[in-house]
Each structure stands twice: as C-alpha cells, then as structure tokens.
C-alpha cells in the first residue's frame, strides 16, 4: 500500500464471489461483502457452509470460479506473484488447522512471520513476547509446538497471524479448541488490532463470540449469504 495509490476505502471487497470445487461441489455462490479498516466481521454458518472457502478466496489460497476479490483496492486475480508475496506479509491468517511447524518452538513459529518480512530482530523479540503474554502462552514460549495442547496451538496460530500487525487478519474458527476464557483473550487481541486499523474477518460457529458483540455478522448457508447484519433489508 505504501507505494500504490489507494483506490478504495475498503480493505476487502468481494463481488458476487463463487467457488465450485471439481467436479461439481458448489461451496460458495454469489457472495458480496466489504470490510473497511478497523472493522471486525464475523462469518458464521453450519459446518460445510463455506466459511473457510470464503477466507481462502480472500487470501488467494484458492481462486474463485466466479466474481472477484479486491484487496487493498487491487483486483486480487491481477496481482503478480512477486507482489503477492509482499501482500501476504500484510495479511495475517490463522488457519483452521493451524499450519504450525510442530518441531519449532512457539516463539520461533510466531517470529517466522516477521522474519520473512525482514524485521529487525529486537523488534521481533519484543513483539512476539508481548503477543504470547496477551494470549497466556508466556511459559510455553520455548517449547516445541508439538508439546502444546491443541487449544494452546490454536492461540499460537492466532499470535502468528497478528505478528506483523497486518492490515487484514483472517481467522478461521479461532476459538474452536478454546474455552470461554481463552476465547476472550483472542477477542481482546482482535479488538486491539482493529483499534489500530486492522480489518479482522473471523469465521466461527461460536455464537458466544459474536452475539451481542456489536460487530458485523455474515451468515452463510450452503454457500449463499443469508444474513448480513449491516444490510438487514437486502434479504
């Protein structure tokens, strides 16, 4: 963003997005949404509704079969692979299956996101230490990830996604393995990031997380958007 002219007020804009997996599994249909800087957006829906697919399309882990995604005002499909690398460093993703390196320490796993962005080592140490503290993982920081309980691993995944203070944070089911208290730590982190301008999009089936939170909620059903708390009238 530093060297491109912003053409949009939104971090993410999806236009009539659709995804059909071969041979004919329609996971997403005609989904449009926008997310502005500082906004927290929840994507809900039953298992298999298409939540993960939507997030994968936004970070280009899958390519859409229809429609388009605008990221930081650029058409995602048109971004070259070198520039995409830079953009990936500005997007933090907490995957539903974590995708951590089990043999590396917790610290190292989180630091990786900053190392690939060539951040100074002192800054990395500070930031990683602070994040692990916020998520209640300080006493695990030197342990290999494989020694952690799954709920702990989930928080490491969230910490890594937040490490670069990304412009966009995608979190897929970030509290699936977490109890209410740990879940609250994660939500607090999201709010802090959002306050600093990060757009947070979280997919979740956990009603506690978004109910009465005042944040926007999109509900998917069999790949279709059936509820959008901001445009109630549209449905």
């Amino acid at each position, binding site marked *: 963003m530093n060297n491109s002219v912003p053409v949009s007020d939104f971090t993410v804009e999806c236009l009539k997005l659709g995804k059909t997996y071969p041979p004919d599994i329609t996971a997403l249909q005609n989904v449009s949404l926008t997310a502005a800087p500082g906004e927290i957006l929840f994507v809900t829906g039953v298992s298999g509704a298409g939540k993960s697919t939507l997030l994968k399309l936004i970070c280009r882990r899958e390519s859409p079969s229809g429609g388009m995604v605008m990221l930081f005002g650029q058409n995602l499909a048109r971004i070259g692979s070198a520039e995409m690398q830079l953009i*990936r*460093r500005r997007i933090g993703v907490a995957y539903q299956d974590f995708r951590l390196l089990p043999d590396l320490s917790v610290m190292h796993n989180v630091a*990786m*996101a900053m*190392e*690939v962005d*060539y*951040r*100074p080592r002192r800054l990395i140490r500070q930031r990683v230490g602070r994040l692990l503290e916020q998520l209640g993982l300080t006493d695990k920081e030197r342990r290999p990830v494989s020694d952690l309980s799954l709920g702990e691993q989930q928080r490491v995944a969230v910490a890594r996604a937040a490490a670069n203070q990304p412009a966009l944070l995608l979190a897929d089911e970030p509290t699936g393995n977490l109890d209410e208290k740990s879940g609250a730590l994660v939500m607090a982190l999201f709010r802090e990031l959002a306050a600093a301008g990060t757009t947070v999009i979280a997919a979740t089936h956990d009603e506690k997380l978004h109910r009465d939170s005042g944040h926007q909620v999109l509900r998917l059903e069999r790949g279709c958007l059936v509820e959008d708390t901001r445009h109630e009238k549209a449905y």
Partner: protein
Amino acid sequence: MKKRTNPIPQILRQTGSNLAKTWPTQIMGLFTVMLAVLIFSFFLLVHLNMLATGARLGEELRLTVYLEREIEPPLMARLEQQIRQFGDIAEVRYTSRQEAFARFADQLGEERDILDNLGPEFLPPSIEVTPKPSLRSPDDLERLAAHLLTLPDTTRVQYGREWLRRFSAFNRVLQAVVLISGVLLILNMIFTISHSTRLAMAARREEIEILRLLGASRSYISIPFVAEGLLQGGLGSGLGMAALWLFYQRIGNPVNDPGLLGLFTPSFLPLPVTAGIIVGGTLLCVVSSLLVVNKALRI
C-alpha cells in the same frame, strides 16, 4: 513506514539454522554424495589407465619393410620421403643387418645362446615404419603395406597382423565397457544424489509451504536449500576425490613396481578431470536441490 532490515543476514541465519537443525540428514547426504563421486571417479581412474595402456600397446605397432640389400644414407633419405608421402607416418627408421641381429638376440633374452653359432648375415636389413595413431585400423595398414611394397628393393612387408587383430578387438571391448559403465555410473550418481536430496526435502515440504503462506520470497526459501546443496555437493565431491587419492596411493604403489616394465604406468586423474568431477558433483547437488525446491514451491 515499518522498519525492515537488510535481507541478507536474515537469509544467512536461516541457512545456518537449517543446517544446525538437520545435521544428521546432512551427514548422511554428504556420505551418499561422497560414495557416488568415489565410485564414479574410481572407475574413471581404472578405465582411463586401461585406455592409456591400450594406447601404449598401440605405440608398439610398426611395419617392417625387408630389403634385398643394405641401403646407403642418400638413397634412404629418398625412400623415407617416398614413405612419408602416404601421410600420417610418425617415424621411419632404417635397420642394418647388424642392428637386426642385435635386436633379435635381445628379444630372445635368456634363449639368446641358440644364436651363438650364427652370424648377423642371416637377417635381412629393413626399414621400420611407425604409423601415427590415426592410421591404426586394419584396413589403413593394409593400404600402407601395399604402398610400401611398391618401393624399390622391397622383398616383403611384415606387420603383426595377428597382434593387430588382438589389439583392435581388445580396444573395442574396452571401449564398450568404458561406455556402458560411464553411462551406468553417471545414472547412478544422478539417482543417488536426487534420492538423497528428495529424502532431505521430504521432511521440509511442510516448512516450505508455510513459508510461502507467510509471504516469504522465493530467494528466502530457496537460498538455504541451494546453499545446502552447494555445501553438500562440494564437500561430498571433495571428500570422494580425497578417498580416491588414498586408494590410488595404495594401489598405485604395487603397480609402479618395475615388474610391469613401463607397459602399465598408472597415473591419477588429470587435474582438469578431478576439478571437473568436483564441479560436476557439486552442480548436480545444486541442480537437484533447485529442482526439488522448485517443485515444492509450485505446489
């Protein structure tokens, strides 16, 4: 504007930490590369020496033109000119009756006493013609012999037809063996090194994929692997050649034994070949690493 540092130290650190983490695999890989290079160069050494011996045998090949009578130097000079006209002649040498007798006695060695009651007259004078290596096929020599028969005073042209056929059959076998074994051993080296690289990589495919998801640049991901291939290939090839040198010292000595009378004087691989093998082995490792990392990056 976020703070960023020079990427080079970070990439180097990454390389170092990779090496430190995976050293058991690295050592195995090193040993594998060393073995592959050693096997290849060992047989190259043996075969080059065999080829050299073959060539040295070939140098013993010459045609003898028997003459009716002794020849004076001026006539000899004319004859030599006529002979060299044929082309590809390495040497032309006149042998008088006296010299022929002395040499025959020499050849008989311990049996020379059977000549005791014979005078040098019973052997005819001759001219020995040594062809260049380019002129060693049975057909060429047949033509050369025919040419030599047209010279004045020639009674007979003789050359080791039997010997020549032995020699060229031997050479053909040798060349087939060298060719087949070369192909087999190069295949073996490629297979071994690529297996070892893929084995080392299998454990790290996950790491590569995650680095990509985090937006690491291609060079950030590839450089550690390529550096590893470079190190492993260079060290492995170097150690392989060093091991070969040790073997050579052990076998070379019994061979240098005067027993073989210069027929087989062993020599180590020439420096350019040694360098070539080391560079080749290293390159093979680097290319193999690059291929594997690129395949992993494509996924």
